[in-house]
């Protein structure tokens, strides 16, 4: 078995690590404090070209394999998960269905500018009464002549308040549950499409998250993003594993940022005449954190490798997301204990990591849902 990154992947990791250290890390605190979309950093960072990470070179992308993509997701989240969420939305969920099913005109209007950071993308799943349970989606799409008419309200939409276009999950028939779901493209400026309430969040601040309202929004037929009607759930399956493993990779980014803070503190902080890292109980924390982070990465990168090799990865992706995120929550907690009361002060970073980690418990599927899903696959219906 070969667990090593290729020479190219090692180099990519080095470059993206340095880039994040130079551009994102110094801004992380300000992004969290302001809780506004960081337009200046967005402009500077996106012109480097990373938003085309997963798309073919012929259309200006990098064609990165899933393993390389996970390296990117982990590092950008290490810098600032608030910023990372906005970036990854443009790279993956917010553009995938436009790339996969969009006409050339749609690609030119939405995808290509989004790959350059000139347009902000989003994807809308969640509603006030449905999140992980997509079959409960209430937003409707009704065909009228050559148009679709969308009605509904979406909640918890990453980039929602600033998005230039949205991939919207809506049902063509409420009685069909998950089998009536489809994706539709709605662009900013379309009458009836407007941002609603912006959420004030505990963590992942800087990603502007909020409500999107669709009030008799009329879109042309070609804005149905799918080859066949009512196959939305099937199409979602094409990126579901990547979204889950990506969430795990982001969790490892946060965990690493917190761990590094803990390490520095344990080496410097003196108690009873010696650095606290010399005490066994503190050392044990690092042994546990490092072990579980290593285990998380093995799950993440082996799931990504399976995706790269086109091997089945659904259960492995769920395992990686769940284990890495739970590990992240443990690590950020332990680091606040290592920092003692200083972790409670807003002027230091551990409290930010502690807050940020919480969101990943729900994003990409709650662990309660994932466990049920995995249990079903393992035991059978």
């Amino acid at each position, binding site marked *: 078995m070969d667990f090593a990154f290729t020479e190219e992947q090692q*180099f990519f990791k080095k470059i993206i690590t*340095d880039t994040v250290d130079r551009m994102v890390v110094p801004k992380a605190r300000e992004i969290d404090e302001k809780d506004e979309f960081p337009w200046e950093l967005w402009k500077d960072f996106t012109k*480097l070209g990373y938003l085309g990470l997963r798309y073919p070179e012929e259309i200006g992308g990098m064609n990165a394999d899933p393993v390389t993509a996970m390296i990117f997701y982990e590092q950008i989240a290490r810098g600032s998960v608030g910023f990372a969420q906005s970036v990854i939305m443009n790279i993956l969920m917010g553009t995938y269905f436009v790339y996969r099913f969009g006409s050339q005109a749609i690609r030119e209007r939405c995808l290509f500018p989004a790959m350059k950071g000139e347009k902000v993308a989003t994807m809308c799943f969640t509603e006030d009464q449905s999140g992980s349970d997509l079959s409960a989606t209430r937003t409707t799409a009704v065909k009228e002549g050559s148009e679709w008419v969308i009605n509904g309200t979406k909640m918890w939409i990453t980039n929602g308040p600033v998005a230039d276009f949205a991939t919207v999950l809506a049902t063509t028939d409420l009685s069909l549950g998950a089998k009536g779901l489809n994706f539709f493209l709605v662009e900013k400026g379309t009458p009836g499409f407007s941002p609603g309430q912006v959420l004030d969040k505990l963590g992942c601040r800087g990603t502007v998250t909020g409500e999107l309202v669709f009030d008799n929004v009329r879109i042309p037929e070609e804005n149905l993003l799918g080859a066949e009607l009512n196959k939305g759930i099937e199409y979602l399956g094409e990126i579901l594993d990547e979204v889950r493993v990506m969430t795990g990779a982001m969790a490892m980014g946060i965990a690493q940022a917190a761990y590094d803070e803990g390490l520095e503190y344990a080496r410097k902080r003196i108690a009873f005449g010696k650095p606290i890292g010399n005490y066994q109980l503190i050392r044990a924390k690092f042994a546990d954190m490092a072990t579980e982070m290593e285990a998380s990465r093995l799950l993440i990168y082996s799931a990504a490798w399976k995706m790269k090799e086109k091997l089945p990865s659904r259960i492995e992706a769920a395992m990686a997301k769940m284990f890495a995120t739970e590990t992240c929550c443990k690590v950020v907690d332990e680091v606040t204990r290592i920092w003692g009361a200083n972790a409670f002060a807003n002027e230091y970073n551990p409290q930010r990591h502690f807050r940020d980690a919480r969101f990943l418990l729900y994003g990409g599927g709650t662990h309660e849902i994932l466990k049920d899903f995995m249990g079903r696959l393992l035991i059978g219906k």
Partner: protein
Amino acid sequence: MNMLVLVKQVPDPEALVEIASSGKDLNIEPKFAVNLFDEFALEEAIRIRERHGGKVKAISLGGPKAIEALRTAIAMGADEAMLIEDEAFAASDGYNVALALSKAIEKETFDIVLAGRQAIDADRGEVPQMVAQFLGLPHVGVVVKLDISDGKAVAESSLEGAKEVVEVALPAVFTAQKGLNEPRVPLITGVMKAMKVQIPKVAVEDLGLTRDMAAPENSKTKTVGYLPPKKRPAVQLIPGEAREAAAEAVRILVDVERVI
């Protein structure tokens, strides 16, 4: 205008460094980076090419891992790179390193050789000057501004409390100081090129050198041992009113510590 940039892969500034129990070696955590001052040199070479045309070629002497530093050079915008692959030579003294580099440079067509003012690992700051000596070329060090025109360069060097302006005919060797520029963050197009590029490797034998030249007994200088830095004494708090305390602080700095 063809530029050669000498690039060294050094331990990452955050890598842990410990003196081995023998006292004769260092145990360095295997985390690496491009020498910071070489990044200034690379950036300047790329900017000169952007203004005057030509090519930028990065050259490194080191083990197989040094390829990563050269990939970084390509990602930033260097056109070509070459590795002189020899760990023994790379670990040898500045004289041998400069000799190997100058033998490689002799085979190239160039107008400018740029390098960092020093490598941040050994901090000796000696190789580019010796390269200039081996090649019989002028050298301008610690450059913070470099203008090229009509086959000559006007370089500004930073001195203690002043700047020196030097005019020199090309070809010449320059060493880059902090302040010369702000190295660019690589674009993904550069990163992709760097990930795919095949970087040619040459052996010291290809340069007319022999491996035994790098043996410790044949080096011009020998590292006898490493000593840990003196432990920093505890912080000294000076009591009293601000004015008197400041006067006492100055007295300690001048008379006791003799640092000012």
